[in-house]
């Protein structure tokens, strides 16, 4: 209950912070009320990001974060007073009146609101996605235990130095409302992405049903359903991408500089969420460039928008330059650090059918109809975007060329330069949803007689299949979210990539006394385990070694024993096995973890084989550090 109250307050504060700025940038009312709401939220989170950025490196705890929240709420007051609450209420009443006389519109609204509410509430389920357990949540939790935000060198992960817009929102929430609210923030960004898709559909000439349909197609996309109840970041980037496009299209109406500044801020916000925001900016930059070519006098406005967007990123870039010498760390590392490590070289060719032009053309087909074969899993769900979006070509929607151009450029950049993970295509899903909704509405509009029945029969399996994906996630996460299923049961029965290690980590929390430390050789080091008291694979004097070499130096047995003795570790937690799911049948296989291949584990493998763990689960085991030290000493 408190989590839902908190998230409502969080949304209101962000809207209040962003609203005056949106009004200032849109003096001629070029944006609709819904578009202003979306843009206000996305601008409103920026002061919170910068607040945490400035404050938390000095002090990060409940007091400092509640102080920041109180200041933000006070600053939001003028915005709340400026917001047209009466106009908004009238718009809701008008929509309800329309829906009363339009069963299909009513059904779409009900489906949309049910999907949105389900996504929001699912956020209260215990986190169990791999990246969040590894760093999205684990690092903020480490900071909270340390009382300051400091570089987490000991993780040995370049990921912890990615842009941190959502990371700082997680920090703010984790220190104030706690874990239950953290994941719900992502759902708020999802709602903005859905609003953006609906707004885009209207701008492209779609009707009310098509707009609600587009919003539903965004929220029902399998990757959106999954990510909206996690701390993953692509949902926020999606929201920034579609609102940047909407602001750009509004700017093209009368070329007011305020809207170009808004578009620039949206692109800059996207870059602060994830580096893929740079590809979004390049993609939208092409239609912007074409606008300049048609009217060279606009170059100043576009430059102003670009400067505003880049300005948002500058503090992060300066911080990274100070830490690593690379303002874009860990990207383009070889450019800034001669001989530097290319951290993501392995990922680049892990997915897809290849990088030829034929592969480029066929990629949408394969990622939609055979997603488990070549790409990163069932990301989209039923292939409704592939089935419906091309139909819009016949409808020739307004401003369609600019939208297609942005999507095409982003897709080409994704295909040739980025890791071909389908979830990285999320920034263009609202645009594809808009095309899909407009295309379907057009075909339904011209279908006559029994062709209408044929069309419904053709589309219905897609609706049912995607509805099943939405329902399955609800069935999995809503029971633990509302407390019907315990966190322990949920983690036991709900698989994640290599396990959440929930029960063993809880055991460590219960059995680690204040001041005691433990050695963690688990992969990844889970958010659920104590963070600051853990000694990971990198010792303090070598924790930056991966910056230059990509991996830590080798360690002899004698040196390890000496460090182990000095560390006085009470417990040792080690990975035993991991679940592998990319099998031919899709059925999971348990693969044992080879401790001898681990830099530190190799000195422990023979000893641990003879010792009995004090507790374990199928993935990890915990041993008594004193017994291990005795065995290392040969006693």
């Amino acid at each position, binding site marked *: 209950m408190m989590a839902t109250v908190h998230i409502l307050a969080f949304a209101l504060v962000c809207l209040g912070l962003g609203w005056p700025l949106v009004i200032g940038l849109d003096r001629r009312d070029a944006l609709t009320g819904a578009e202003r709401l979306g843009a206000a939220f996305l601008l409103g989170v920026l002061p919170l990001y910068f607040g945490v950025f400035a404050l938390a490196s000095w002090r990060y705890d409940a007091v400092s974060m509640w102080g920041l929240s109180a200041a933000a709420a006070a600053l939001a007051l003028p915005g709340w007073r400026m917001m047209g609450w009466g106009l908004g209420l009238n718009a809701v009443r008008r929509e309800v009146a329309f829906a009363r006389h339009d069963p299909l519109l009513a059904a779409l609204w009900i489906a949309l609101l049910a999907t949105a509410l389900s996504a929001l509430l699912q956020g209260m389920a215990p986190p169990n996605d791999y990246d969040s357990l590894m760093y999205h949540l684990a690092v903020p939790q480490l900071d909270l235990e340390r009382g300051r935000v400091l570089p987490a060198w000991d993780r040995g992960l370049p990921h912890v130095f990615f842009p941190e817009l959502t990371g700082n929102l997680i920090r703010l929430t984790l220190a104030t409302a706690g874990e239950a609210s953290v994941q719900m923030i992502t759902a708020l960004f999802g709602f903005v992405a859905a609003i953006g898709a609906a707004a885009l559909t209207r701008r492209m*000439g779609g009707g009310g049903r098509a707009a609600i349909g587009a919003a539903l197609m965004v929220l029902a996309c399998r990757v959106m359903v999954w990510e909206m109840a996690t701390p993953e970041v692509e949902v926020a980037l999606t929201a920034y991408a579609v609102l940047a496009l909407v602001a750009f299209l509004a700017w093209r109406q009368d070329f007011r500089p305020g809207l170009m500044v808004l578009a620039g801020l949206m692109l800059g916000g996207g870059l602060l969420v994830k580096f893929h925001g740079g590809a979004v900016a390049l993609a939208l930059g092409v239609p912007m460039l074409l606008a300049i070519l048609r009217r060279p006098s606009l170059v100043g406005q576009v430059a102003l928008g670009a400067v505003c967007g880049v300005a948002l990123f500058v503090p992060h870039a300066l911080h990274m330059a100070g830490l690593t010498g690379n303002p874009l760390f860990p990207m383009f590392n070889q450019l800034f650090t001669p001989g530097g490590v290319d951290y993501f070289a392995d990922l680049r060719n892990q997915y897809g059918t290849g990088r030829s032009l034929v592969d480029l053309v066929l990629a949408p*087909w394969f990622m*939609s*109809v*055979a997603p*488990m*074969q070549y790409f990163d899993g069932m990301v989209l769900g*039923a*292939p409704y975007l*592939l*089935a*419906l979006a*091309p*139909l819009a070509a*016949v*409808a*020739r*929607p*307004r401003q369609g060329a600019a939208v297609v151009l942005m999507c095409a450029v982003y897709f080409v950049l994704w295909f040739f330069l980025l890791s071909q993970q389908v979830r990285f295509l999320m920034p263009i899903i609202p645009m594809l949803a808009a095309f899909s909704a*407009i*295309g379907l509405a*057009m*075909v339904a509009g*011209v*279908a*006559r007689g029994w*062709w209408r029945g*044929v*069309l419904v029969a*053709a*589309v219905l*399996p*897609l609706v049912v*299949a995607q509805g099943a994906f939405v329902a399955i996630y609800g069935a999995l996460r809503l029971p633990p979210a509302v407390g019907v299923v315990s966190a322990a049961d949920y983690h036991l029965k709900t698989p994640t990539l290599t396990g959440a290690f929930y029960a063993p980590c809880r055991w460590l929390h219960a059995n680690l006394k204040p001041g005691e430390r433990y050695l963690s050789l688990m992969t990844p080091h889970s958010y659920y385990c104590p963070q600051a008291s853990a000694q990971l694979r990198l010792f303090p004097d070598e924790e930056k070694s991966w910056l230059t070499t990509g991996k830590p130096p080798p360690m002899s047995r004698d040196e390890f024993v000496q460090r182990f003795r000095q560390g006085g570790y009470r417990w040792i937690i080690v990975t035993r096995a991991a679940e592998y799911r990319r099998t031919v*049948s*899709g*059925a999971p296989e348990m693969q044992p973890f080879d401790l001898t291949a681990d830099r530190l584990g190799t000195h422990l493998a023979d000893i641990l084989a003879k010792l009995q763990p004090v507790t374990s689960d199928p993935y990890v085991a915990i041993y008594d550090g004193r017994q291990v030290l005795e065995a290392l000493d040969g006693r």
Partner: protein
Amino acid sequence: MKVPSRWVVPLAVVWIIAVQGAYFAYSVGYYREKIGVFGRFLFGP
């Protein structure tokens, strides 16, 4: 938006069925082993 020709609806239906036909055919093959005895009875060993 421009009014499309009379071939639009049949072509759209064929395209929609082709995409989801390929998807469901792939999915049945992929999940066949997960479906269990009933699935193997339906789709072969």
